[in-house]
């Protein structure tokens, strides 16, 4: 059960508060979308789930995030272990300046898989899972930069899948992609949601409506509303949510 329980989460950058007392439970499996206007803290929120905010020295986090009942911010938690279980895909495709094969093999290798055949199997499986295998199987040794933007983003998804996470975070994964590449990623998301708990930040409300099972609306660092996607878009309970989704704000 990889549900994510967020309890009284507060995040500061220096003395500027980015998240205010966020409480929510992201259910196991399925897709949860985080929407909201720029600067509402949605990226900060998703980056607290795999503790990526830790690398920013000015960042301070209070509260709890429980996965399988264990607090990710607990005293004896290994950050690298957290990030191994919670994968992340970023706004812009960010493959390593290495071959396609090496991009995928990188993470399993640092986590201890040395056997060549096992690595090759992981590479193939991850690429198939990210619907990229057929396009790249003949040029695994070519630079990842030879791929198109959409292919690079799917490569980054495959890279995240290679360490077999339970949760995958997507931070606006389509913001740098064209509509066709975006559609492919969305198909892929729907494909992954039976196996993984997917959390996606998006500034594109149609995208949230299309792919997400649940949607959360953030505004000025606060969680305003969280619920079933259809319900949130059709009958929002909060007036702020309604103003945002009807385009009168943000």
């Amino acid at each position, binding site marked *: 059960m990889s549900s994510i329980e967020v309890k009284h989460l507060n995040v500061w950058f220096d003395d500027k508060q980015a998240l205010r007392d966020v409480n929510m439970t992201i259910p196991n499996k399925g897709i949860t979308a985080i929407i909201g206007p720029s600067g509402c803290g949605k990226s900060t929120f998703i980056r607290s789930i795999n503790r990526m905010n830790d690398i920013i020295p000015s960042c301070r986090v209070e509260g709890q995030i429980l996965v399988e009942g264990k607090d990710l911010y607990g005293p004896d938690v290994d950050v690298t272990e957290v990030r191994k279980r919670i994968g992340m895909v*970023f706004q812009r495709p*960010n493959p390593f300046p290495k071959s396609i094969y090496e991009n995928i093999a990188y993470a399993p290798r640092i986590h201890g898989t040395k056997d060549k055949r096992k690595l090759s199997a992981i590479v193939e499986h991850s690429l198939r899972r990210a619907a990229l295998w057929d396009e790249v199987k003949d040029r695994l040794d070519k630079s990842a930069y030879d791929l198109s933007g959409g292919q690079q983003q799917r490569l980054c998804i495959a890279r995240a899948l290679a360490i077999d996470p339970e949760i995958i975070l997507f931070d606006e994964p389509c913001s740098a992609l064209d509509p066709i590449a975006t559609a492919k990623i969305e198909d892929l998301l729907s494909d992954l949601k039976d196996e993984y708990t997917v959390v996606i930040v998006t500034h594109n409300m149609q995208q949230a409506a299309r792919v997400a099972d649940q949607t959360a609306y953030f505004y000025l660092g606060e969680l305003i509303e969280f619920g079933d996607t259809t319900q949130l878009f059709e009958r929002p309970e909060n007036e702020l949510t309604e103003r945002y989704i009807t385009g009168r704000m943000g």
Partner: protein
Amino acid sequence: MKYINRTGALSRVAGRTGLKGFDGAPHLILFIITLISATVLVTVAAFLILGSLQAFRVIGIVEMLGGTVWNPTSFNNPAFGMLPLMAGTFLVSFLAAVIAIPIGLGCTIYLAEIAHPKVRAVLKPAIELLAGIPSVVYGLFALLILQGWVAQVFGLQTGYVALNGGIILAVMMIPIMVSLAEDAIAAVPRELREASYALGATRWETMRSVILPASMSGIVAAIILSIMRAVGETMAVLMAFNQTPLLTLDPFSGVQTMTATIAIEMGEAAVGGLHYSSLFAVGVVLFIITLVMNTVANRIMLRYSEAYR
């Protein structure tokens, strides 16, 4: 996106957009200024080559480059073999590189990845400041203090040996290396670091497997450029050890570098004589060595600008 060369790309853009303000007189003036700089390089090269012609003609290129004795002031048997001088330059630069590379790279990695931003904000300018200290100051330190330490540590009668020069040159190389290599590492996009951290890599794994490979060509270029500094250095070398043109690779011996030879002997050589001309020949060889190293460094740097878009 790959650039064939940056200036080429830039001039194409200028051609397309017309850059109106740079037509006419300003264009001409800037062109002439650029031409002057380029002419200086050609003039220096021509000056060296012309001056050296006599030596190469009379002594012979093989004897000059392959001769094992440098004794141009001998009355009976003057010898103009450059090999001892090249060995001297090589030995001193090699010692300096062996000392400077590990320290410089360690320093770079600390500054780039480990140091707190506030610490880096103080340390990096401080190290870069060291690059601006005149070489005679380093030479003075080598002459007055360092040689004593070298003599004591290695049990020598005097510390005026090649190693003393190597150490002081290493001290002079490190700031250049650190400054350039740190720039190369800092130029690695943040997104690549984040990608690696997000996969559960530690800082060290990220450094070793992502950041260093991505910035390797910049780091290698930094090393080459700092070695060039050592090869070309004259004053600190002159002051650090006894200039004796021995063909040896013994770090505890005095040697004589190419730069020091020109500096010392130019004053005593008769203008227009063979000795005078042979010093120009030394200059030509030195010029070629630095030109080759610079070209190699530039090639590597160009490749590094293509490593990530």
